[in-house]
């Protein structure tokens, strides 16, 4: 009932909304004290407290940098070289050549860019729409809340891939279909994440004071409620990002997404697996890149959540 299910991954309640084992009484007190004296975290203190999180963040930054500036530094991902067909990795082709003699490195960088861009756009779009729906539903209550609740229930009832098949049936395979699928399947999560806290903030004294003072609903929502829910939304965004990356590459892998000759991590993997015995690098490059990126996002999300939710902390 969480990020996983909707975004093409197995439903895994542990990392998302359910806290792990509640610590014993003594441990909990210790934690509260530690939390009380802990100064506000900086990037540096996060890195010291969570080396895994820091490594993940660096991996992600490297992937983003490679996706942003890589295609400028490298060559044309579509240029073919008859002499480089299935070429082993060399100085000229650091990751070898593919079945048309295209540079695997250049295609990987271009594919990474396409995949990350699609995932980021879809996740952000979903976060904005979903959070807006959740805010409005939580704040307005009544019929609006009910309507949004039904809508998210229906969207939740569709497994991601079935939704993707349905969308592909009407729109045909392509990038638009991928974005529609990812957004539609992840909106309900953001709506739920936003709705709960909105309900509780609405009843707080400062929110009531703002309302009594004549603030418009929009002002109360954006000035008083939104700042209170940015943290859960950001964590959810991290998990949605990895889910979107999996969904995009999975759909492109099936031929429902990014169409050749345009590269994406999924279509590269699909190309590469056909020739994996002749030229394993064409398959290994996108496979390992994809796994590393998703693992980094998940680890970072877990670490951030553990940092914020004291029930998940160990020491």
């Amino acid at each position, binding site marked *: 009932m969480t990020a996983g299910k909707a975004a093409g991954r197995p439903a895994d309640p542990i990392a998302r909304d359910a806290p792990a084992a509640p610590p014993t009484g003594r441990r909990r007190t210790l934690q509260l004290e530690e939390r009380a004296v802990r100064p506000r975290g900086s990037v540096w203190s996060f890195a010291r407290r969570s080396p895994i999180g820091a490594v993940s963040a660096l991996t992600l930054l490297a992937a983003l940098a490679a996706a942003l500036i890589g295609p400028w530094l490298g060559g044309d991902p579509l240029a073919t070289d008859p002499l480089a067909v299935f070429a082993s990795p060399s100085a000229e082709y650091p990751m070898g050549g593919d079945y048309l003699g295209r540079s695997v490195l250049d295609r990987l960088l271009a594919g990474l860019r396409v995949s990350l861009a699609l995932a980021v756009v879809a996740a952000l779009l979903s976060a904005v729409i979903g959070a807006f729906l959740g805010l409005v539903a939580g704040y307005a209550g009544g019929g609006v809340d009910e309507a949004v609740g039904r809508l998210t229930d229906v969207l939740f009832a569709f497994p991601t891939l*079935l939704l993707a098949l349905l969308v592909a*049936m009407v729109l045909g395979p392509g990038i638009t279909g991928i974005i529609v699928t990812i957004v539609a399947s992840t909106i309900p999560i953001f709506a739920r994440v936003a709705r709960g806290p909105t309900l509780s903030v609405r009843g707080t004294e400062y929110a009531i004071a703002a309302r009594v003072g004549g603030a418009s609903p929009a002002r109360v929502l954006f000035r008083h409620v939104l700042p209170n829910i940015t943290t859960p939304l950001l964590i959810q965004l991290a998990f949605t990002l990895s889910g979107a990356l999996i969904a995009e590459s999975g759909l492109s892998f099936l031929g429902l997404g990014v169409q050749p000759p345009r590269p994406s991590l*999924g279509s590269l993997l699909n190309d590469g697996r056909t020739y994996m015995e002749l030229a394993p690098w064409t398959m290994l490059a996108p496979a390992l890149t994809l796994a590393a990126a998703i693992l980094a996002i998940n680890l970072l999300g877990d670490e951030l959540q553990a940092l914020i939710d004291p029930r998940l902390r160990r020491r």
Partner: protein
Amino acid sequence: MFRYVAQRAMTAALTIFGVATVVFVMMRLVPGGIIEALSGPASLQSPELVERLEEKYGLDKPLIVQYGLWLGNALRGDFGESLGTRSSVTTELIRRGGVTLELTILATLVSLLVGVPAGVFAALRRFSPTDGAIRIGALVFLSIPEFVLGTLLIYVVSTQGLGLPVSGYVAAGDDLGGHVRSMLLPVLSLGLVIAAVVMRVTRSSVVEVLGEPYVVTARAKGLAARSVTWRHVMRTALIPTVTIVAINTGYLLSGAVIVERLFSLPGLGRYALEGILGRDYPIAQATVIVGAATFVLANLAADLFYAYLDPRITY
């Protein structure tokens, strides 16, 4: 209890009905129109075919009548015939359903056989290095999408000369040994990802139960550690594990599409994909409806099973 069952069954029926309605609407949005969608380019040569279709689906009647006829056909399990092969979609659904059913059941078994012992082991030794290793392993498997895992498995098996088939399907009736070998890699690709989820759920649930007062009591009155673990802890702790299996049906269905394509298994998932990519709409609509119905029914089963297992839940 009866009221609860009836209520949940009602909701499930309504959801399936909703999905069927969405598919009906989608079929009428398909580019080229409904006649071409149901008959393909063949309709251009054969006025009789068009006439037959118009009669069967009442295409000359008002939309609401068409909707009724369509629902009636779907309820009787009549999904028309494939545009490509002119074979009955229903016959094909039953034949291929067996392959998918076997794949998903075996994958679930693998996930339980690997995930439950690992989770229990990690929980009993929590915060030890073994626990850490198991948890990191689970996160890694959770982060590798099944199509990447499957591709890597194929690569390892084919380069190491392990003698396992990496593609194709052998029917159990033809050659039982060959059948088992042909299913091994697909089942592992699908099962290991879910094993990671099962492990995480089992671990956190066991850890939680270990802290319960009645477990402390059992220990305090001098019962052997093993007896406490198996007779007091496991009985309660495995409830969430059972339900997570059912909750992941949606993921299994999505995963089956990908794994069947990767390993060329003639299951429902590949049938759906053939239908979508080949613009064979009768296949596409039938597989989407069957998939959604399976998902809804599995979730219903999970809810009821949970209510049955946990005596604290009353309705």
